[in-house]
């Protein structure tokens, strides 16, 4: 299965350098935080800033190791990804994130279900009603019976009251 992902030409080392850049960014952030904190090390001589400095330095070193691997051509082979289904799912998660507060759990999570299943190949006219029914059922079971507090929108307020 892993072998299928390999061998799609392109610029195979690009990802390695990108990962190296991200690691350097995180490392810089940790180092900055480590040095910015006032030292309250006390007897230990190592305060809140100690570990951020260590982690930052390690991330910088790992970033360097990635650059080295990239230059030597030991980096990641570019994997083959079909972008459309991935984007459907990301869209579903974004929709849920944005709509949860204004529209409530049923609509937001129903949409996530619908967009995910649609992205994986089922028609939207099938996935949307199913997602809404499922999300509504989940709300009923978890919020009303199991006392898990889920955000209510107009549908939930209409059915279960305010």
């Amino acid at each position, binding site marked *: 299965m892993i072998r299928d992902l390999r061998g799609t030409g392109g610029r195979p080392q690009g990802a390695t350098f990108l990962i190296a850049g991200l690691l350097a960014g995180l490392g810089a*952030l940790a180092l900055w935080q480590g040095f910015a904190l006032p030292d309250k*090390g006390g007897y230990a001589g190592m305060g809140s800033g100690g570990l951020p400095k260590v982690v930052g330095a390690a991330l910088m070193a790992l970033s360097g190791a990635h650059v080295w691997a990239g230059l030597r051509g030991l980096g990641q082979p570019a994997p083959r990804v079909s972008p459309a289904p991935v984007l459907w799912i990301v869209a579903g998660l974004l929709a849920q994130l944005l709509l949860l507060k204004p529209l409530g759990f049923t609509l937001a999570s129903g949409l996530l279900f619908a967009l995910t299943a649609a992205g994986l190949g089922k028609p939207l006219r099938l996935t949307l009603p199913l997602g809404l029914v499922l999300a509504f059922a989940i709300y009923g079971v978890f919020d009303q019976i199991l006392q898990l*507090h889920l955000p209510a929108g107009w549908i939930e307020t209409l059915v279960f009251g305010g």
Partner: protein
Amino acid sequence: MAMDPMILLYALIGVTLGTAVGVLPGIGPALTVALLLPVTYGLDPAGSLIMFAGIYYGGMYGGSTTSILLNTPGESASIVTALEGNKMARAGRGGPALATAAIGSFVAGLIATLALAFLAPHIVKLALIFGPREYFALMVLAFVTVSAAFGDSAIKGLTSLFVGLFLALVGIDQLTGQARLAFGVPEMLDGVEVTTLAVALFAIGEALFVAGQGAMGADKIEAVKGSVWMTRADWARSWKPWLRGTAIGFPIGAMPAGGAEIGTLLSYAAEKRLAKNPEEFGHGAIEGVAGPEAANNASAAGTLVPLLTLGLPTSATAAILLAGFQQFGLQPGPLLFVTSPQLVWGLIASLLIANVMLLVLNLPMIRLWVKLLTIPKPWLYAGILTFATLGTIGMNPSPVELAMLLVFGLMGFAMRLYGYPIAPVVVGLILGPMAESQLRRALSISQGDWTTLVSTPVSAGILFAAALALVVPMILRLRGRGEVLSRLAADED
């Protein structure tokens, strides 16, 4: 306590759920426990913990079913089972393969849980004399073995680990109260939730990865033909591998050596070497199913040894179990055996009962579980994501939390694409703050003298072992380039 009907019910729910998620591809025990944490917040602590442990055991049973019938392991500890198990199923011997896996898991679970019960008090006695520096050394050892000792690249493992440690920095420092890397966002002062990270990396990352593979061809499920019972010859060929698998898996799980898959690899290699007819390996040798399946259950029980006695998680699932204990205000470790003995021993006793339940669930009812495999992937993953986000929403319905879920989900996707291991991130997040406070406590006691870390034979020895675990695999890889893994890959068609 273990015979209390409510506790039995929790155990039954746990093993049933565990078997189900073990069977289903894409969700494993770590994710399931992470999802259940917010839901069980208000429930009985003992019952919930028994349920979680049941999920862990059940996942090890269920994973074999998918490996054997579908050639797609349900979780990583069952990868080796697929090698011989699927060949047996294709040859119409799926029934005996499932049976030797289930009975082997039972034998191993039983012996290993008893070993846990006998071993735990001794380790607790030992652990009571441990100070901060010994704990810090143990945690360093766990970091190294989880991230760098196994897998195909030490750099990738260490990258995952330090990303986890970076995430662990976010929030208020427990010792001084100073905020770190929170950037004034109130939600980030609490730090990154273990459940949010685990759900994002495991569920969302996996769903995106599966989606990115493109066209969904239907998988070929081998039907279970004929009897699920083993013949006399099958029994004769299975019992020794079960015992050997247990003997290999338990210590590997109990040492901070990183997850159940290592034990299964070693057990497979041992059975192949010891077999009377090694030419059968690669064409469906029952020993190659019996040994690794016993090994993965034995290491699941073994993992509970450092978790319960030292509070030290050595796998992703153990890290989530630790988060489960902490949710109920319990800190696993030697003191737990003193403060709540009935909880610890109730948990261990329940595991023995859970094992019997699992044998019943997995042998006569195997055809029912196979039906789970026929759920089409779009519905399966849409359902997984809906439930995955449900846990986070139930815990904290804020857009910031969901945004973290999305960002970490994308990170999990990228990590899968480029072959970075997931478990070290989770272990780094949960163990990072514990290691930091032990280190700072040790340095406080020594007034800032770093040589205190190697000033006792125990802590120096553990740190030396950690250094070996980092360096030796690197040398091995430079010489042989991950020989074991490449040999296994060559055995597959």
